């Protein structure tokens, strides 16, 4: 739609500028706060012109929160979750769209329903499973009396145990399953013309071959979009990493930010906390900037 009315143009720009100001203001305040000395940042009201201690604050935040190590953890965690989600949801959507098997729709809706069960809702059982991955099997064995039987017959007590606390696996795995991703792929696969599938069959390609040679290359942009969204989402996770990583060597940058926030009674070092926040915000920003082109194309998805 092309409009050629100066007044409307003006209104549009005003609306956009107001929106931009509202979105950017918190970041500006964070950046300004990060540039002040401890004294200035605690003035009321806080001065709104940048101070001179920016680099000193950044350096202090970096060492105090051990951000080098924590950023690496965060990166492994977020990249692992993003990659896992991309792979799992592509495979799930592939099986749901391209194969006819009993209970197909049931499984699809079961996956869909998990949209209503985010991690926060199922956090306790998820934690229990992460603490001992085999506990569900143990429960089954106990309930069916098999462990009792084994105990009677062999004298061996059945106690399965495999803990994932304080490990990357434990951080990543529970967050990998994703209904959103499956749905995104499903919608994309449904737009791939049937003739392409049939052409591949005529060419002799089996299902996996077709998936790898045709579907995956075609869904590159989808993958990029999904990976970007999921990377950001995982990077900003707080609750789960906080629960699973009791050992600080596995903590992520986002959970570690809290250590920069002053304890009760201390002088609040908001300048250091804000500097740390800036550092932690940076990697997602870089990812978005680099992935933006792909990301947008994947979501509008016109390339067929």
């Amino acid at each position: 739609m092309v409009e050629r009315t100066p007044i409307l143009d003006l209104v549009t720009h005003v609306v956009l500028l107001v929106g931009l100001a509202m979105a950017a203001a918190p970041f500006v305040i964070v950046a300004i706060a990060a540039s002040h000395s401890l004294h200035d940042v605690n003035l009321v009201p806080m001065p709104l012109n940048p101070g001179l201690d920016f680099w000193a604050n950044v350096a202090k935040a970096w060492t105090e929160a051990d951000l080098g190590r924590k950023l690496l953890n965060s990166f492994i965690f977020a990249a692992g979750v993003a990659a896992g989600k991309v792979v799992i949801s592509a495979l799930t959507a592939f099986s749901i769209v391209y194969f006819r098997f009993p209970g197909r729709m049931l499984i699809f809706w079961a996956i869909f329903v998990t949209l209503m069960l985010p991690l926060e809702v199922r956090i306790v059982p998820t934690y229990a499973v992460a603490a001992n991955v085999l506990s569900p099997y143990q429960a089954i064995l106990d309930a069916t009396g098999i462990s009792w039987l084994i105990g009677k017959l062999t004298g061996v007590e059945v106690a399965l145990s495999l803990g994932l606390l304080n490990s990357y696996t434990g951080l990543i795995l529970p967050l990998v399953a994703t209904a959103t991703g499956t749905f995104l792929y499903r919608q994309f696969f449904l737009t791939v013309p049937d003739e392409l599938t049939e052409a591949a069959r005529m060419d002799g390609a089996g299902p996996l071959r077709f998936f790898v040679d045709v579907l995956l290359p075609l869904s590159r942009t989808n993958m990029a979009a999904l990976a970007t969204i999921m990377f950001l989402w995982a990077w900003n996770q707080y609750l789960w990493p906080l629960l699973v990583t009791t050992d600080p060597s596995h903590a992520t940058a986002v959970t570690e930010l809290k250590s920069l926030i002053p304890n009760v009674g201390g002088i609040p070092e908001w300048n250091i906390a804000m500097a740390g926040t800036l550092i932690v915000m940076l990697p997602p920003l870089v990812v978005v900037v680099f992935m933006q082109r792909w990301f947008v194309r994947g979501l509008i998805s016109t390339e067929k």
Partner: protein
Amino acid sequence: MASIAIRDITKNYGRNQVVHGVDLDIGSGEFVVILGPSGCGKSTLLRMIAGLEEISDGTIAIDGKVVNKLEPRERGCAMVFQNYALYPHMSVAQNIGYSLKVAGVAAAQRNQRIQAVARILELEHLLDRKPAALSGGQRQRVAMGRAMIREPKVFLFDEPLSNLDAKLRVQMRSEIRKLHRRLGATSVFVTHDQVEAMTLADRLVVMNGGRVEQVGTPAEIYGRPASRFVASFVGAPAMNILEGVVALDGISLLEGSRRLPMPRAGLPVGTKVAMGIRPEAVRMVDPGAAGAVEATVDFVEELGAGRVVYVDLDGASFSVVTSESAHPAPGSTIGLKFSPSDMHFFSSETGARLDFFVASLPEPVV
């Protein structure tokens, strides 16, 4: 090269039957065109030969071997799709060579064969391009190349020309014909375009409503249509049909005195029949001429080489193809003459052709 034997093939989608017991034999190296309106089951039949569609009942044998349970690849068929179905992310060379890659043919040998196919189809300068950067005709040729490279026993074409513009369609038609002469592979070509069907086919299969109406050479189909459906479907403009009734002294075609006295050929009085005559077989004469039927001109279509005159014959619409320079004005009255030897008769009930010795009939008295 291979022969295909189709025996009593049916196809059901749930309770909905779309192909009703088709029998067809396709000889080795033959070019067979399946013609029919959309939804007649012709594509389904082709896809059953290809192995893309399960066969509900009956058997398909290629070279004497029943292939009902074989995967498409194992049947030795290659298919050209209506929308080409090229892999959008692969170059032309990769598209053509994909089946060889899947089959595990070494890269060097693969390239050699891609080059050979590209040379035949004049695609050599396009091998590095993506399908999106090709014109419709070029995409079509890539699709053909993808089928050719496997050196299949059977070529299957699913309306491959319907997405091309008119000029390109004619050109690709002759290319397919030439290619068939060169490769000699058994080909089955599905189309709803009768010109395509007539020009390409060694033998034509006309289908309607999931059944085969007639099998024959294009000339046979045109000259002796086996049913009213075939008669009106093949030929453009369509064959004129007049409804009539068998009377005591012959078949009464039109209202009043305009009746055609002809032997009843054993048909009981009162049997309803349909007489068909091709627009090309009707002659335009002066209104008063002996033995002519008078009709009012509705409108005239100019074709350049000739024209189609649409007339009103006692309420029935009738068309005449004429190459004469006469250009009757709409609303004027003209005379029409047709000879009994050009007439086709069909049962109004079943649509089947009724053969009596039309050639021996006298000129109609009007």
